[in-house]
């Protein structure tokens, strides 16, 4: 029986943790009032939403890596996981930056957690996407 890929399971768990981060370490809860009087959530609210979506995709990728049999497919998915890890890091920093005040909830808890988890996904993706040391000849003839 083909073994389940450990790096795939690690990636899936990291994806789950990314989904859970805004729940465990919530972003700012206040609302901003526009000149029109309309109240809208702060910017970091959308950062959290985007990151939760990335977390779900990373989790799905991890599970696919874990249960797929083809090493080539696994490598390709590892590459994609690494790219998503980088996107997870870049989102709270540049793509949808969190609030300006460094003391706000999104900056003291959510952002560092997402950057660390994104870094681990990137690392797992890069390590998993390395070429195997011996060519999978046995599998080819199996």
């Amino acid at each position, binding site marked *: 029986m083909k073994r389940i890929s450990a790096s795939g399971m690690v990636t899936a768990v990291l994806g789950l943790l990314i989904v859970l981060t805004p729940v465990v*370490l919530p972003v700012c809860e206040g609302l901003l009032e526009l000149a029109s009087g309309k109240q809208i959530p702060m910017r970091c609210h959308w950062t959290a939403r985007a990151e939760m979506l990335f977390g779900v995709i990373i989790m799905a990728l991890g599970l696919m890596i874990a249960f797929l049999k083809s090493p080539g497919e696994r490598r390709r998915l590892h590459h994609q996981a690494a790219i998503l890890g980088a996107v997870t890091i870049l989102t709270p920093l540049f793509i949808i930056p969190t609030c300006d005040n*460094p*003391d706000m909830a999104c900056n*003291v808890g959510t952002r*560092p*957690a997402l*950057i*660390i988890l994104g870094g681990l996904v990137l690392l797992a993706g890069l390590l998993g996407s390395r070429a195997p040391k011996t060519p999978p000849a046995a599998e080819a003839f199996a």
Partner: protein
Amino acid sequence: MKDITLPALALQNLRRKPYRTVVIGLCVAVATGSLFAATIVLRGVQHSLDVGRARLGADLVIVPAGYEISAQEAFITGQPSTFYMPADVKTDIAALPGVQQTSAQVFVETLSNASCCIGEFFLVGFEPDTDFTISPWLATHLDGKGLGPYDIIVGDRILLREGETVIFYGTAFKVVGVLERTGMGIDRTVYVPMEGMRRMIADSAELAEVTLAVAPDEISSLLISVAPAADVLDVAEMIEASLDNARVFTASQLNQAVASQLQGVLGVTFGVTAALWLMSLLTIGLVFSLIVNERQRELGILRAMGARRQAVFRLVMGEAGLLTGLGGLGGLAAAGVLLAGFSRLIQLRLHIPYLLPNWIEIIGASLLLLLLSLLTGALASLPPALASSKMEPYAAIRKGE
């Protein structure tokens, strides 16, 4: 063919049992990492208190009776706190022997929708002529230029930079300086010259959503610098005896307040870490004695091939050293990343001041803990390593079959 070297052999043995290696490595990593984090937080708090006390400059602080705790909290964490007492306490105190200089301050809390920042911040009115908290900084950073009534100095955590204008209670102020980071409440404080503060309070009835109810003859705290020849505690006692509705606390009491806050958390952390070390020591000892038993045949063959007793001893010790060394390094790296990322969260949740200690201290603590994890490995694997090196090759091969 490649030569077999002891480090390569030790590494190969560790890689052969990845689950066992990872679990023992994690034990050491958790123990080393938590001890490193606790040490750095402790040193960070001390460093912050030193820098903060030096910036505060005062030996004693007088606040209205009943507000000692909230005043200490305000100095340590910058949690806004407002309280007032009659200003004439200043003239009474200045006349006492041993008192070198006094300077009054008035505390006001910003409104939560202030134009600079979300949340409440501390506005501190100070007297530029007598102050010893901000004035020494002004002398070196503003090239001796005077401070206008609406010129303000802000702490590092206030989102304002030099040259910007900000409105508090309807009055516009100009930022003329940003203080260096201390990790204490000063970082979340806005310093306003007393004249500007009094005008802002007076104008708040007309210009602001909320009217400030601070009388012109009221102050919040009185900072005292004690003469070099006088004893701080003696002067504190004398002041305490002469005051009815005010209390005095010393700068060193700020340390005590922080220490009592930290005692519980750090006590538990150190206790758990000590238990983890002991557990790691016992686990490594047990696992290595099992490994030696399990590999008697392999070690016997090594001896039969010409390996000396010393080589077998070094192989077992090397494996333990490599395992605990890598675990220790992993723990230090993980603790370093978590501390760098969550230091502000720790500071806010524990209500403690924190400023990263200097790099020499951090590197020193890391090396010391790495050495400790290596020693743990050496100590735990010493008995099995000795036993394995004493085995006779033939008996070992037969027993291991």
